[in-house]
């Protein structure tokens, strides 16, 4: 009956709308729909562009609210409503207030997409990703083989890419992790990824666990290191006297390293106290104590630099 046109996009805000979303995605799964249908469902029901990204499986699908597939023109905005399950992330490209069924659409669509991906592509990430990445960061590899590897990894030859190194492995063009250490190399043409890889490894050495005994940033970008990067060439940073002084002082006062990091990376003692969540006067006492243990001032500019360098060298020593 053609006049019974129902526009699914016009779902109203009542409780029935959520039930219709559930029924829609249940229907898709029951009928054996593919990934694009699922993303299209999300775009139509949420009435905004929707995109599905699975970096590990190298799956990228984007559909506009009129149902037409369209490649992503822009990088994803972290503020968009999104939901991840396993390696699958579904995003609704909406910057304003959330739509009435956004949350339900995300939940059902991600669940449906994961079902399809696990069924059709296997649970494991694409098998030879690691080998391809290794080829791509090997400066000794032939250029044509590296370009081929880039293509297999879905990296356009004319778009800059960057390497991100984590203790557990090497990644290309992935977002920085929300936890854990990572070093990020500069964005370069794909054939120069070996250089980005070296830079990322260097950056990783400057990262810290972010704990009391290893305070500092968990994620470091090589580009932001500047001249500090030159410290990475020091042959035995643990042998530098100031680093040994830090270790001795830290053994005597467990709060010392975190306090030094806070004092030398904030603009005032008051801000440092806030970061450390201690009282201003407590911090003043600690600073005096620390200066006594170390044998140098940590507040005048020179002493601050000396402390920063010692902390950086200590990280390099811990991350050989």
């Amino acid at each position, binding site marked *: *009956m053609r*006049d019974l046109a*129902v526009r699914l996009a016009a779902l109203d805000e009542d409780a029935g709308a959520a039930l219709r979303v559930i029924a*829609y995605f249940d229907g898709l799964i029951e*009928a054996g729909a593919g990934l694009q249908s699922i993303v*299209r469902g999300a775009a139509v029901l949420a009435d905004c562009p929707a995109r599905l990204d699975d970096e590990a499986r190298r799956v990228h699908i984007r559909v506009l609210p009129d*149902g*037409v597939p369209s490649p992503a023109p822009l990088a994803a905005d972290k503020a968009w409503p999104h939901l991840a399950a396993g390696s699958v992330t579904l995003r609704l490209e909406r910057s304003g207030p959330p739509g009435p069924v956004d949350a339900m659409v995300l939940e059902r669509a991600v669940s449906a997409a994961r079902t399809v991906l696990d069924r059709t592509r296997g649970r494991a990430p694409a098998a030879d990703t690691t080998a391809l990445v290794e080829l791509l960061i090997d400066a000794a590899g032939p250029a044509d083989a590296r370009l081929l590897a880039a293509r297999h990894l879905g990296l356009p030859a004319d778009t800059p890419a960057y390497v991100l190194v984590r203790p557990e492995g090497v990644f290309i063009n992935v977002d920085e992790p929300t936890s854990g250490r990572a070093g990020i190399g500069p964005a370069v043409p794909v054939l120069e990824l070996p250089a980005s890889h070296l830079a990322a490894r260097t950056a990783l050495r400057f990262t810290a666990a972010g704990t009391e005994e290893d305070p500092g940033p968990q994620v470091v970008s090589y580009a932001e290191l500047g001249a500090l990067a030159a410290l990475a060439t020091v042959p035995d940073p643990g042998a530098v006297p100031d680093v040994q002084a830090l270790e001795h002082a830290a053994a005597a006062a467990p709060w010392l390293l975190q306090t030094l990091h806070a004092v030398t990376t904030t603009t005032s003692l008051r801000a440092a106290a806030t970061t450390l969540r201690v009282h201003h006067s407590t911090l003043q006492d600690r600073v005096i104590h620390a200066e006594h243990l170390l044998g140098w001032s940590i507040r005048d500019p020179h002493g601050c630099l000396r402390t920063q360098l010692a902390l950086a060298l200590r990280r390099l020593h811990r991350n050989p």
Partner: protein
Amino acid sequence: MTTTQAPPPPFDPELAAALNAVADQIPSSVTPEQIPLMRQGGGALAQLAAPDLTRDGRFTVEDRTVPGPDGAPDISLLICRPTGTTGTLGCVYHTHGGGMIVGDNRSGIGEMLDWAERFGLVVVSVEYRLAPETPHPGPVEDCYAGLVWTAAHATDLGYDPDRLLVAGASAGGGLAAALALLSRDRGGPSLLGQMLIYPMLDDRNNTPSAIQMAGRGVWDRTSNQTGWGALLGDAAGGPDVSPYAAPARATDLSNLPPAYIDAGSAETFRDEDVAYATHIWQSGGRAELHVWPGGFHGFDLMVPTAAISQDAREARLHWLNRLFNA
């Protein structure tokens, strides 16, 4: 026949999902008692809010009253003319759908306006009287009177009379097919083509697809009986039904304008639409047939975003492009 016992073809996944989501609002079976309610619309069943037919001034819109059939009331034509187009215009004469029992000349107008913008067409959509208040031949004669007026006023409307097309969906597809037959048999307007979108053609309502889809999808066998019963009364399915009421009854399908016919594989009209195309070819005529797998009746109207709906609409554009620009 064992084939009639076979399970129906599955719906396309995206169409199945949409149907699943609005199942409570789309009854498969429409009975005569439901006609008044259907005409009122309401809820999600209501037609989309009155669209801006001028499309921000790209069309002039006019409702013109013109003479109806001999001895019958005047009829109203919705006339939408593109404002920005230079060059030769064509014309699509539209007969709306609605099972012969509901709808008006705004129903389904969106796709006509899309074509008009794409190919430079005047859109004329006829307000014919509905069954059961007006049984056959009232509705089709209203449509024919409007077509004759439209053809005679090509200059007035500003289009080339050699570029006049009839088009309609569902019951409107059946009416468009009947207009092609009437024009041929009465020496009426010369038509460039007939666009029959899942047309309602056969009052006998007993094809394998009608039987397979009973109680399922959209516009099932019961609904179809409601529509034909309203138009033809007790004559529906009997020996004396005019081909101008039910074009599937025509024995001669030669010398007709080129036809475009589509249907879903999971709808009541599948087999009568395929048979109509086959009959045209067997009569030495020109027809293009598309059967969209897993499509229910009106799938592209109800779920325009589905991949298969986009493809179905694209296929119509391809045919129109060959018709107007070849």
